[in-house]
């Protein structure tokens, strides 16, 4: 296996290469930005129409009350987990290879959470009353229902979003100072000056910085696990067959890490090309990332099988019927596509020759996420079509173009936020890459030049 990074890159060169990404991306950047804005247009149009007319235009109905919005909400929440995995968990484990790629993974966390939050709003029948979910003092002393998993969701997501924004920002302070010192005068200079909080790189500052960063990292890990467990409780705590499954929380967390890692692979390839980061986002790093993804894919597959087995061997006949319905009913093509994309396709990643083949990885990573999106949909939709009560066994429900439009547009919204971030802020962590180069050169110094020459 090659080197994660060349040890002879000069520190000034690192600054120069990364700062260049703030100035002159390839033309592809602007094309992506334009497409993203067009996609958002579709979503905004659909949402305005739905807001004016009523939820009926999304073609949900009285037994299928939830649809793509909730499925996509879980998808985006899940996507947000890998950023924390890479930056917090791997930080604690001293995995050096995460350094060039954790910044954008963290940005992904923040922006996918922001996208997920929008789906809560889009889903509500009376979006203008959304503040009822929050416990705020009011003249009638009416509180939200603290028993409801949706209220836990609200707390969990708000906490996770604010902490991950803080984490992203704190980790960026030394880099913002570099930007401040190197950029020509203008609005950006002012922005970096304010945001770098007077960073000078003194010993005291570094010491405080390290402690703060570590503290937030430790705080974020249990938070990330609990957020998706709480989202899983929305289902596990209900009594619908197909949802009422004890293993849902770990299953959701595994699925979240899985789709997040696949998304990191996709964005890795895009950023490497668009911002010319070939020196930093190297193939050996990709290889490690792919192996991590493969491992998580297998964990997810295992938990999936556990779920099927516990339903199959449990004595809840309705849940069993629901599982059979999923595998053989009108949703069967999507169900089996989910199994294929989620469990069979990742087997490819076990082969060395695919682990660094970027075009193939690009396609595969997108398909993995298609599989993960299908997983969320296959949790939501079939339960409504085959519940406890036979009168509701009606499969004649297909999401309307309004729903598809908003789901489609959410990818544009995420891309827009992400691409703007990468252009305004350094998407590769300069100081951590320098650290990595330094560690490497130290290691080389202590290594004998010729084998046996000791």
């Amino acid at each position, binding site marked *: 296996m090659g080197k994660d990074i060349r040890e002879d890159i000069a520190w000034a060169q690192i600054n120069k290469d990364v700062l260049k990404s703030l100035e002159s991306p390839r033309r592809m950047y602007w094309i992506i930005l334009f497409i993203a804005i067009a996609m958002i247009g579709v979503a905004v149009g659909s949402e305005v129409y739905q807001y004016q007319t009523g939820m009926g235009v999304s073609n949900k109905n009285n037994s299928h009350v939830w649809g793509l919005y909730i499925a996509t909400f879980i998808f985006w929440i899940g996507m947000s987990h890998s950023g924390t995995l890479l930056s917090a968990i791997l930080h604690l484990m001293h995995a050096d290879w995460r350094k060039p790629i954790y910044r954008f993974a963290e940005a992904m966390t923040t922006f996918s959470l922001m996208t997920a939050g929008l789906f809560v709003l889009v889903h509500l029948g009376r979006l203008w009353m959304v503040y009822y979910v929050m416990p705020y003092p009011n003249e009638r002393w009416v509180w939200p229902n603290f028993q*409801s998993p949706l209220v836990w969701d609200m707390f969990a997501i708000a906490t996770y979003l604010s902490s991950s924004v803080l984490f992203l920002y704190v980790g960026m302070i030394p880099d913002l100072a570099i930007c401040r010192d190197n950029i020509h005068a203008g609005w950006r200079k002012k922005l970096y000056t304010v945001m770098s909080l007077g960073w000078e790189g003194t010993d005291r500052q570094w010491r405080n910085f390290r402690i703060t960063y570590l503290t937030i990292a430790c705080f974020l890990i249990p938070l990330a696990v609990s957020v998706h467990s709480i989202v899983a409780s929305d289902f596990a705590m209900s009594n619908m067959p197909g949802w009422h499954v004890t293993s849902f929380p770990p299953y959701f967390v595994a699925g979240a890490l899985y789709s997040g890692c696949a998304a990191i692979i996709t964005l890795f390839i895009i950023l490497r090309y668009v911002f010319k980061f070939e020196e930093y986002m190297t193939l050996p790093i990709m290889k490690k990332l792919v192996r991590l993804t493969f491992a998580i894919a297998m964990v997810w597959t295992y938990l999936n099988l556990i779920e099927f087995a516990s339903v199959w061997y449990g004595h809840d006949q309705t849940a069993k019927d629901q599982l059979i319905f999923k595998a053989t009913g009108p949703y069967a093509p999507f169900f089996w596509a989910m199994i294929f994309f989620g469990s069979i396709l990742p087997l490819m990643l076990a082969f060395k020759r695919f682990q660094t083949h970027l075009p193939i990885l690009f396609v595969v990573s997108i398909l993995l996420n298609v599989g993960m999106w299908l997983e969320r949909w296959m949790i939501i939709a079939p339960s409504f079509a085959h519940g406890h009560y036979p009168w509701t066994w009606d499969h004649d429900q297909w999401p309307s173009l309004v729903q598809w439009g908003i789901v489609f547009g959410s990818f544009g919204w995420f891309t827009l936020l992400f691409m703007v971030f990468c252009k305004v802020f350094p998407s590769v962590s300069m100081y951590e890459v320098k650290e990595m180069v330094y560690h490497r050169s130290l290691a080389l110094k202590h290594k004998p030049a010729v084998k046996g020459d000791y």
Partner: protein
Amino acid sequence: MSITNLLENWSDFRQQHPSDDRPHREYKWAMSIDLDSCTGCNACSVACYAENNLPVVGKEKFAHGHSHHWIRIERYWDNDGREFADQGAQFLPMLCQHCESAPCETVCPVGATNHTADGLNSQVYNRCVGSRYCNANCPYKARYFNWYDYPTTDNVWPEPMNQQLNPDVTVRGKGVMEKCTFCVQRLTVAKSNARSAGRSVLDGEVQTACQQVCPTGAISFGNLVDPLAKVGKQWMKQQVELNKDKQAKDAEEKAAKLRGYRILEGLRTYPSVMYLEQLRESAI
């Protein structure tokens, strides 16, 4: 409700298991429906539309599943090889079961659906934000969502139909959940009258709209706490107990003669509606 009140009386704001030591004091509204008498004529459904200002959504939206029948007649065809016209069917009127331990109440994020002291499952339209979690968690799917803004939609209540809207019941706007209330507006009036006279509501003094119109008298409704009420006698005779998720009679052999049962009782929802099993052949 102040914060001190919330903290001190925390248990009052939590869902209680019905067998907890909190019996209904004066009223526990309940129903029984005799499926043997039900002919599937849909009069109950029509009466409910008139009484509770249910929007008439039209054929197209009905086919999309956007209908609002708080009481619906479910039709189950016989599978005996006979074709339609000769094929038999059974009917079952389904309405909100006003569960004592209602799955919809625990999941509502804003507490828009609650249990009243009378044992009703209430829905506060003004508080509802339309997350539809209650419907998702209702095993009977007896809740109906306002998918459109019906008060401003043409032909829902075309002139002069809007003149017959019940003034005692609100007309719901878009984005809120609604469901059978056991005609709570009638219960409130009856209770108020009884209180003025210094007594409790007598059996038969209040009827739900569906009960009132049922041509075969299949529906009985009343106060389960009242020992003289017909509904209480029926429950007693059928040995169906409100606070059990498994009736003691089901284990005994003589139970074959008893027709009373509650739907999906095993889910521990403790429904307030008892059905009496059908004995005769399916209607043709």
